[in-house]
């Protein structure tokens, strides 16, 4: 019987967002098939640092998502095995001078009204939190709600939950969507055959725009490249996620040009991870020594002790960027049965649980945990480029 094993919903993408969608849908009692052309965490999830941040977000819809998600991550950390390496390490944003400090103060005051806890740390107290920070910094803000996970394990372990209701089909690429007479979703066609289900969730991350195109709808997800420098393993020299104040402005910018700001953090395994760069150069995987120079310079300015430490590798990933910096989450009114859960830019690990909760609520007809109007997937419909003339 072809329908006996048909799932209630198909999630396309086995990154952390797809895994979280599957997890919450399964928790709601649905059976889920997760399809990915590659392995688990093979795209942007596997190239991420695993940041769960509220500190870098302006008050607004994304911060609302982040705050709910921070609570969901705390709950998931109890449920998932220790390999997920959930660590409520806290973030520390530092400013090099007094004007920078004033800007941080104003930013933190606005965040506080939205529910973010931020505590000012004067320059002479920074060393209590981070003994190796450069002595010349003007001060900073400590954000205890910031946390970190190991992203590949987060995705892999979420897919193992669900009491048998989650079925991964890896190494299988979606080549088309199956639709009924009214254009409604009937399933997907893959390189290995057809899978039937009334709902399809687009959790294809940076490739979400391509999947939307298969469904005949416009969703302008663009890659925004980022490099991470990895040092040799060290004893714990960096305790928090530490970053320079200009990071917030870079995250919020829409510029295609290269932006870098120092983001430094230790990992349980020992290496220190150094970010963050942002540039829109398509899917170009070429090494940029200019990016590496800026990352190294930024990190050694914050932590001079790192100057003598060796970088042993660097890797890059492509953040799924939507023009207004908000993800696309929820049903697509243009294609009944199609839901989107992509375009989280650099915040996908952090925002995965809340995204999964919203998707599960939409599938079961429950009330989502917040107003999802800002994330509606069809909001870019009028930016669609004109169709090419028929051949």
């Amino acid at each position, binding site marked *: 019987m072809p329908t006996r094993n048909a799932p209630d919903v198909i999630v396309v993408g*086995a990154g952390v967002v797809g895994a979280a969608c599957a997890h919450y849908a399964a928790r709601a009692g649905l059976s889920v098939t997760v399809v990915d052309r*590659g*392995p*688990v*965490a*093979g795209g942007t999830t*596997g190239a991420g640092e695993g940041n769960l941040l509220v500190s870098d977000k302006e008050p607004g819809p994304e911060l609302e998502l982040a705050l709910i998600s921070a609570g969901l991550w705390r709950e998931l950390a109890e449920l998932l095995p220790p390999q997920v390496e959930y660590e409520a390490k806290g973030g520390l944003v530092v400013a090099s001078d007094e004007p920078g400090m004033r800007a941080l103060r104003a930013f933190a005051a606005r965040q506080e009204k939205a529910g973010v806890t931020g505590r000012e740390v004067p320059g002479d107290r920074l060393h209590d939190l981070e003994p190796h920070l450069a002595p010349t910094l003007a001060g900073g803000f400590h954000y205890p709600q910031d946390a970190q996970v190991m992203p*590949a*394990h987060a995705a*892999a*372990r979420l*897919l*193992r939950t669900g009491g048998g209701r989650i079925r*991964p089909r*890896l*190494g299988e690429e979606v080549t088309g969507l199956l639709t009924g007479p009214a254009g409604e979703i009937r399933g997907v066609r893959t390189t290995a055959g057809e899978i039937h289900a009334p709902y399809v969730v687009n959790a294809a991350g940076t490739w979400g725009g391509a999947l939307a195109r298969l469904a005949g709808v416009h969703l302008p997800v663009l890659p925004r490249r980022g490099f991470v*420098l990895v*040092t*040799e*393993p060290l004893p714990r020299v960096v305790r928090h996620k530490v970053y320079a104040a200009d990071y917030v402005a870079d995250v919020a910018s829409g510029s295609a040009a290269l932006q870098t700001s120092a983001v430094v953090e230790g990992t349980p*395994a020992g*290496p220190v991870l*150094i970010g963050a760069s942002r540039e829109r150069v398509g899917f170009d*995987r*070429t*090494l940029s*020594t*200019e990016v*590496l*120079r800026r*990352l*190294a*310079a930024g*990190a*050694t300015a914050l932590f001079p002790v*790192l*100057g*003598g*430490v*060796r*970088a*042993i*590798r*660097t*890797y890059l990933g492509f953040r799924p960027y939507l023009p207004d910096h908000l993800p696309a989450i929820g049903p697509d009114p243009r294609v009944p049965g199609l839901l989107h859960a992509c375009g989280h830019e650099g915040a996908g690990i952090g925002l995965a649980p809340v995204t999964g909760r919203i998707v599960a609520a939409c599938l079961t007809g429950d009330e989502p945990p917040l107003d999802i109007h800002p994330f509606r997937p069809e909001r870019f419909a009028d930016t669609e480029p004109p169709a090419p003339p028929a051949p």
Partner: protein
Amino acid sequence: MTASPSEPEPSAPEPSAPEPSAPEPSAPEARREPYDLAVVGAGSAGLAAAVTASELGLAVALLDASAQTGGQFHRHPAPTLGARRPEALHHDWSAFTDLRRRLAGSSVTHLAGHHVWSTVREDDGSWTAHAVTGADGTAGRPARIRARTLLLATGAYERQLPLPGWTLPGVVGAGGAQAMLKSGLVLPGRRVVVAGSGPLLLAVASSLAAAGARVPAVVEAAGYLRYVRSPLALLANPAKAAEALSHGTALLRHRVRVRLRSAVTEVHGTDRVEAVTVTRLDADWRPVPGTGRRIACDALAVGHGLVPQIELATALGCATRRLPDGTLGLALDDLQETSERGLWAAGETGGVGGAELARTEGELAAHAVAARLLGRRADGDRIAGLRRRRDRLRAFAEVMSAAHAPGPGWQDWLTDDTDVCRCEEVTAGRIREAVTELGARDARTAKLLTRAGMGWCQGRMCGTAVSCLAAHGGAPEPPAERRPFAVPVRLSALAALDGEPDDPHPRAP
């Protein structure tokens, strides 16, 4: 160094001349930049290319991490060791000394002690090689060498397949044992079993025996029948057969027994190697139950052939090809150019084939580079001759590569508690779990989920094994060799990279 800053550095001196162990940081090379050609690697291929290109009139820089030329194949003792006859351990020594003599008489700028960690194409189409200097890459300022064309002759490194007990002291790489012997005249033990697969094993065993070690057995996983299946390649390369024969004769003289279709499947010992178990293999390299024999020894030299060292090229997006033994080499055109215009490669980077092939390819590439830069056609008798010799030797290399391709059954000698990644101490069992339970389907995800390959060696040691385990019985993808840092680089050196290269030849407005 004795040269003044305005002079090119002296090329490799004769062995009798004292040579500084750590070269000085190099400011002087900026004077002559951009070079016509920068050659990375001063082994057989790079040396032949640099010398030939210089003799054809090009301004050439020759970079190598080592203080001496010769690469791995012609590795030789530092002059301070006072070795009387370094050639005793070498084939082709005269070919090397000939190149070294020509280098000394050439205008090639030999930049010894330069660890190239990245090569970058600039907007104008020229190349920049970024290097750190000093014996361990931590001396002086980072060096930046600019050139109109680039040739990668970075050689190969040894392929290892893990086995139970291989982390015991006394287990060394077969190539490593050879290198220890050639550079320091040091033996890894007194009773050394040589095992693995590939033509290097016979050479290693005869070197060890000649240097006074007992070699109770050479254990080769392949049979030699595969060679016989390609009689044309063998007939066309009588010198290769003679080389094998000379090793064979040496082994006979030292009463060394060669066991074919067998593998060391376990190493025994408490503090160091005390014995190994040698087991017969079936055609797929699966250990045949009940055939294990224990051989007492105090060292094991093990290696499964060589892997082209191509990370500088793959970081630039060069196309690769899968070699018959499952490794990746660079895809090259008929004149040794990679898929990236202006970037050539020679020697083991295009597939492991030995010193003579490396020299031939280096010389051929140099002619091709000269023709491109001087606006000539790359033809003529010399080039035609080099191409014929390259094709003949390359055909033999492919036969050799196929003969020693590991069979899928080798994984059967891995127990779940065998360490596969030694840097991060990741066992075979954990990698198998990542594949069967967690959804890893390739080496990259297996690495993400287990940390195998994330340590100091960046997967050079365990990459093959992790790919095989991740393939879960299917055909393993060769490790993709995406290592943006060819060597570790201090953050202070990275931070000191200038934004824009200085133009050494400012043009009139």
